[in-house]
């Protein structure tokens, strides 16, 4: 037994180790990627109950037209379906808050009623407007069931602005931005309903 033999064994081990790791990585890569996509989409879509849809909405983004709305910009749209029937439309919208851009994901059912809203990104003041980023979010839940026409245009505002919604305490600008973005998205849904829901509805 000598040093050369030892070095040779170590070298052989290194080659086998690298080879085995590479091989395991190669054969598992597709499944790992699929798992990652599944977890990400579940995290993103936790505003819809899992059993209400059976497709992978994020895999089929919708082509949106006229994405610049009066107070916000739509950055994406997805259709959740069950047995081929559309059950909800998800709109990703971006608006300007107090400190920076706010990105919301808005779920609307086929009749134009709001299902849920979730904040994807925000840089509002922590402990004030920053509460917009909490999930689950009691303030955003107050919009559930509303639609573009109900309440009226005047009602789609903070109580401070003679509307009917409460605001997040100490965050008027953030609340205004969120309300306008949600209202914009609901109006957009009404205007582009057939295109968003696709054929068959």
């Amino acid at each position, binding site marked *: *037994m000598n*040093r050369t*033999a*030892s*070095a040779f*064994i*170590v070298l052989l*081990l*290194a080659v*086998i*180790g*690298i080879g*085995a*790791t590479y091989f*395991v*990585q190669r054969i*598992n890569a597709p*499944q*790992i990627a699929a*798992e*990652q996509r599944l*977890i990400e989409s579940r995290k993103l879509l936790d505003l819809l109950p899992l059993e209400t849809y059976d497709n992978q909405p994020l895999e089929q983004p919708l082509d949106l037209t006229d994405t610049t709305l009066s107070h916000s910009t739509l950055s994406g749209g997805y259709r959740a379906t069950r047995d081929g029937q559309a059950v909800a439309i998800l709109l990703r919208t971006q608006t300007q808050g107090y400190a920076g851009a706010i990105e919301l994901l808005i779920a609307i059912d086929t009749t134009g009623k709001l299902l849920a809203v979730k904040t994807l990104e925000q840089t509002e003041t922590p402990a004030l407007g920053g509460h917009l980023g909490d999930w689950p979010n009691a303030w955003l839940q107050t919009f559930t069931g509303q639609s573009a026409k109900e309440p009226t245009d005047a009602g789609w505002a903070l109580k401070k602005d003679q509307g009917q919604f409460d605001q997040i305490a100490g965050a008027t600008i953030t609340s205004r931005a969120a309300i306008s973005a949600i209202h914009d998205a609901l109006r957009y849904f009404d205007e582009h309903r057939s295109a968003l829901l696709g054929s068959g509805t």
Partner: protein
Amino acid sequence: MNRSAALANALMLTLLLGTSDSLAGALGALLMFASVVGLYGLCMPVLRPRLTGTSALLAGLLLAATFSSCADLLAQRWFLPWQQTFGLYAGLIALQCVVLEHNGFWRSSLVERLKLCGMFGGLMLLLAGLRELIGHGSLGRGLSEDWPGFVVFSEGLHLITLIPGAFILLALLLAARQALIRPNSISKETHRP
């Protein structure tokens, strides 16, 4: 046990405290630890007589790194949520193999080795169970997708779910153990004039 060995053994604390946030986390870590150390223990005896000095340690390092990275990849495939939370600690298992090699763990008898592993597993599960119970108020949450686990109370003590809380709990467990195994010596002390 000399000072440097004790210090090297303290590396185990990272794994113990980091992954014992819940029973599910601890079980995953134990499973991974057992499979990597088990495979390592199977392969090293074949190699050890053929290697000298440093190259044995180097070979151990390569072997441990290979097993733990393969285990990490397989964990990503089957237990991705677990891996995303605790994958950080997978690399430490490889390091632990090398520490065991260095400290002469593999030179001790099989019974002694199994006893040590059993004690570590028991401590880890005990700590994880207690932390989950006190910190989250539940037991066995996240073990399976359609079983929510025993919910004992809804709001737990948040501190215990954090690493400092784990340290405090471990210290309390150690203190309890000391009190249990050495009650006589303490009573002797009190009777001294």
